[in-house]
Protein backbone atom coordinates (compact mmCIF):
# COMPACT_ATOMS: atom_id res chain seq x y z
CA UNK A 1 0.00 0.00 0.00
CA UNK A 2 1.30 3.46 -0.83
CA UNK A 3 1.71 5.97 2.02
CA UNK A 4 -1.01 8.17 0.46
CA UNK A 5 -3.71 5.52 0.56
CA UNK A 6 -2.65 4.56 4.09
CA UNK A 7 -3.42 8.03 5.48
CA UNK A 8 -6.64 8.38 3.49
CA UNK A 9 -7.92 5.06 4.85
CA UNK A 10 -6.84 6.02 8.38
CA UNK A 11 -8.55 9.43 8.04
CA UNK A 12 -11.90 7.93 6.97
CA UNK A 13 -11.59 5.12 9.54
CA UNK A 14 -11.22 7.70 12.33
CA UNK A 15 -14.00 9.99 11.04
CA UNK A 16 -16.49 7.11 10.77
CA UNK A 17 -15.30 5.76 14.12
CA UNK A 18 -16.03 9.08 15.82
CA UNK A 19 -19.52 9.04 14.30
CA UNK A 20 -20.11 5.48 15.58
CA UNK A 21 -18.58 5.64 19.04
CA UNK A 22 -19.72 9.25 19.54
CA UNK A 23 -23.33 8.17 19.02
CA UNK A 24 -22.78 5.10 21.24
CA UNK A 25 -21.63 7.43 24.03
CA UNK A 26 -24.53 9.82 23.29
CA UNK A 27 -27.01 6.96 23.75
CA UNK A 28 -25.41 5.75 26.99
CA UNK A 29 -24.17 8.92 28.67
CA UNK A 30 -27.02 11.26 27.58
CA UNK A 31 -30.06 9.62 26.02
CA UNK A 32 -30.79 6.82 28.52
CA UNK A 33 -31.06 9.28 31.43
CA UNK A 34 -32.87 11.87 29.27
CA UNK A 35 -35.52 9.35 28.12
CA UNK A 36 -36.00 8.15 31.71
CA UNK A 37 -36.69 11.71 32.92
CA UNK A 38 -38.79 12.60 29.87
CA UNK A 39 -40.89 9.43 30.29
CA UNK A 40 -41.58 10.33 33.92
CA UNK A 41 -42.69 13.77 32.73
CA UNK A 42 -44.79 12.25 29.90
CA UNK A 43 -42.63 13.96 27.25
CA UNK A 44 -40.51 11.11 25.79
CA UNK A 45 -42.47 10.88 22.53
CA UNK A 46 -40.50 13.44 20.49
CA UNK A 47 -37.15 11.88 21.45
CA UNK A 48 -38.27 8.46 20.21
CA UNK A 49 -39.88 9.94 17.11
CA UNK A 50 -37.34 12.52 15.95
CA UNK A 51 -33.98 11.93 17.65
CA UNK A 52 -33.46 8.18 18.12
CA UNK A 53 -34.24 7.05 14.51
CA UNK A 54 -31.77 9.58 13.06
CA UNK A 55 -29.11 8.77 15.63
CA UNK A 56 -29.54 5.02 15.00
CA UNK A 57 -29.19 5.51 11.22
CA UNK A 58 -25.79 7.19 11.51
CA UNK A 59 -24.83 4.85 14.39
CA UNK A 60 -25.31 1.55 12.56
CA UNK A 61 -23.94 2.70 9.19
CA UNK A 62 -21.05 4.50 10.87
CA UNK A 63 -20.15 1.12 12.38
CA UNK A 64 -20.08 -0.52 8.94
CA UNK A 65 -17.99 2.23 7.33
CA UNK A 66 -15.55 2.20 10.27
CA UNK A 67 -15.04 -1.56 9.96
CA UNK A 68 -14.56 -1.47 6.17
CA UNK A 69 -11.90 1.26 6.30
CA UNK A 70 -10.21 -0.45 9.26
CA UNK A 71 -10.11 -3.77 7.42
CA UNK A 72 -8.67 -2.08 4.32
CA UNK A 73 -6.06 -0.36 6.47
CA UNK A 74 -5.03 -3.63 8.13
CA UNK A 75 -4.83 -5.37 4.76
CA UNK A 76 -2.09 -2.95 3.72
CA UNK A 77 0.15 -3.78 6.68
CA UNK A 78 2.83 -6.43 6.35
CA UNK A 79 2.31 -9.17 8.95
CA UNK A 80 4.99 -11.47 10.40
CA UNK A 81 6.29 -14.36 8.27
CA UNK A 82 4.95 -12.81 5.06
CA UNK A 83 1.35 -12.88 6.27
CA UNK A 84 -1.17 -10.29 5.17
CA UNK A 85 -1.77 -7.71 7.92
CA UNK A 86 -5.49 -8.46 8.11
CA UNK A 87 -4.91 -12.19 8.68
CA UNK A 88 -2.02 -11.52 11.07
CA UNK A 89 -4.10 -9.12 13.18
CA UNK A 90 -7.14 -11.37 13.43
CA UNK A 91 -4.81 -14.32 14.07
CA UNK A 92 -3.19 -12.31 16.93
CA UNK A 93 0.22 -12.96 15.37
CA UNK A 94 3.25 -11.45 17.11
CA UNK A 95 3.48 -7.66 16.98
CA UNK A 96 0.10 -7.51 15.21
CA UNK A 97 -1.61 -8.94 18.33
CA UNK A 98 -2.39 -5.54 19.96
CA UNK A 99 -4.16 -4.14 16.89
CA UNK A 100 -5.70 -7.60 16.46
CA UNK A 101 -7.35 -7.28 19.87
CA UNK A 102 -8.72 -3.90 18.75
CA UNK A 103 -9.94 -5.39 15.47
CA UNK A 104 -11.67 -8.31 17.21
CA UNK A 105 -13.32 -5.99 19.76
CA UNK A 106 -14.51 -3.67 16.95
CA UNK A 107 -15.86 -6.64 15.00
CA UNK A 108 -17.76 -7.99 18.02
CA UNK A 109 -19.18 -4.49 18.57
CA UNK A 110 -20.26 -4.24 14.89
CA UNK A 111 -22.06 -7.59 15.15
CA UNK A 112 -23.64 -6.43 18.40
CA UNK A 113 -24.93 -3.25 16.69
CA UNK A 114 -26.60 -5.07 13.79
CA UNK A 115 -27.99 -8.02 15.73
CA UNK A 116 -28.86 -7.25 19.36
CA UNK A 117 -29.15 -3.45 19.22
CA UNK A 118 -30.75 -2.70 15.83
CA UNK A 119 -33.00 -5.78 15.68
CA UNK A 120 -34.44 -4.91 19.12
CA UNK A 121 -34.66 -1.16 18.40
CA UNK A 122 -36.85 -1.97 15.38
CA UNK A 123 -39.37 -3.55 17.80
CA UNK A 124 -39.10 -0.66 20.28
CA UNK A 125 -39.63 1.98 17.57
CA UNK A 126 -42.53 0.06 16.00
CA UNK A 127 -40.80 -0.73 12.67
CA UNK A 128 -41.71 -4.40 13.20
CA UNK A 129 -44.82 -5.59 15.06
CA UNK A 130 -44.29 -6.54 18.71
CA UNK A 131 -46.46 -6.99 21.79
CA UNK A 132 -45.87 -4.85 24.89
CA UNK A 133 -44.15 -7.82 26.53
CA UNK A 134 -41.85 -8.29 23.51
CA UNK A 135 -41.09 -4.55 23.51
CA UNK A 136 -40.18 -4.63 27.20
CA UNK A 137 -37.82 -7.57 26.57
CA UNK A 138 -36.37 -5.82 23.49
CA UNK A 139 -35.67 -2.69 25.58
CA UNK A 140 -33.70 -4.72 28.14
CA UNK A 141 -31.69 -6.64 25.52
CA UNK A 142 -30.90 -3.51 23.48
CA UNK A 143 -29.89 -1.65 26.65
CA UNK A 144 -27.52 -4.39 27.82
CA UNK A 145 -26.06 -4.86 24.32
CA UNK A 146 -25.39 -1.13 24.15
CA UNK A 147 -23.75 -1.20 27.59
CA UNK A 148 -21.59 -4.16 26.51
CA UNK A 149 -20.43 -2.06 23.56
CA UNK A 150 -19.52 0.86 25.85
CA UNK A 151 -17.49 -1.57 27.99
CA UNK A 152 -15.76 -3.09 24.92
CA UNK A 153 -15.11 0.35 23.41
CA UNK A 154 -12.66 1.16 26.22
CA UNK A 155 -10.10 -1.60 25.44
CA UNK A 156 -10.95 -1.29 21.71
CA UNK A 157 -9.88 2.38 21.67
CA UNK A 158 -6.80 1.52 23.77
CA UNK A 159 -5.63 -1.07 21.23
CA UNK A 160 -6.58 1.12 18.25
CA UNK A 161 -4.44 3.96 19.60
CA UNK A 162 -1.49 1.80 20.68
CA UNK A 163 -1.51 -0.73 17.81
CA UNK A 164 1.11 -0.75 15.07
CA UNK A 165 2.52 2.70 15.84
CA UNK A 166 5.64 4.06 17.47
CA UNK A 167 3.80 3.95 20.83
CA UNK A 168 3.62 0.15 20.65
CA UNK A 169 7.43 -0.02 20.77
CA UNK A 170 7.30 1.57 24.21
CA UNK A 171 4.42 -0.21 25.88
CA UNK A 172 4.42 -3.77 24.54
CA UNK A 173 8.13 -4.60 24.25
Amino acid at each position, binding site marked *: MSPSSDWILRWFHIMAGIMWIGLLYFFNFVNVAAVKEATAAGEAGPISKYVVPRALLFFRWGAVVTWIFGAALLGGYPGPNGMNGFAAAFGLQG*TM*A*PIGFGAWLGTIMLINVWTFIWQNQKKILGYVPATDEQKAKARRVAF*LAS*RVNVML*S*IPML*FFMSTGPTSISQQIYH
Partner: protein
Amino acid sequence: MKNPLDSLWGTVISGFILTAILYYIARVIVSHAMGAGA
Protein backbone atom coordinates in the same frame (compact mmCIF):
# COMPACT_ATOMS: atom_id res chain seq x y z
CA MET B 1 -25.33 -9.49 42.78
CA LYS B 2 -26.15 -6.38 40.79
CA ASN B 3 -25.23 -6.33 37.10
CA PRO B 4 -22.43 -3.74 36.72
CA LEU B 5 -23.74 -2.90 33.23
CA ASP B 6 -26.91 -1.45 34.77
CA SER B 7 -24.76 1.37 36.09
CA LEU B 8 -22.91 3.69 33.72
CA TRP B 9 -19.88 3.88 35.98
CA GLY B 10 -19.95 0.10 36.56
CA THR B 11 -19.76 -0.25 32.78
CA VAL B 12 -16.82 2.15 32.50
CA ILE B 13 -14.90 0.47 35.35
CA SER B 14 -15.56 -2.96 33.76
CA GLY B 15 -14.08 -1.57 30.54
CA PHE B 16 -10.89 -0.46 32.29
CA ILE B 17 -10.53 -3.84 34.03
CA LEU B 18 -10.99 -5.62 30.68
CA THR B 19 -8.38 -3.30 29.15
CA ALA B 20 -5.83 -4.26 31.83
CA ILE B 21 -6.45 -8.00 31.30
CA LEU B 22 -6.21 -7.79 27.51
CA TYR B 23 -3.15 -5.53 27.68
CA TYR B 24 -1.37 -8.16 29.81
CA ILE B 25 -2.24 -10.91 27.30
CA ALA B 26 -1.16 -8.75 24.34
CA ARG B 27 2.11 -7.96 26.04
CA VAL B 28 2.83 -11.66 26.65
CA ILE B 29 2.11 -12.44 22.97
CA VAL B 30 4.33 -9.59 21.71
CA SER B 31 7.17 -10.44 24.13
CA HIS B 32 7.03 -14.07 23.08
CA ALA B 33 7.11 -13.09 19.40
CA MET B 34 10.04 -10.69 19.92
CA GLY B 35 11.91 -13.39 21.86
CA ALA B 36 11.34 -15.78 18.98
CA GLY B 37 12.65 -13.15 16.57
CA ALA B 38 9.31 -12.60 14.80
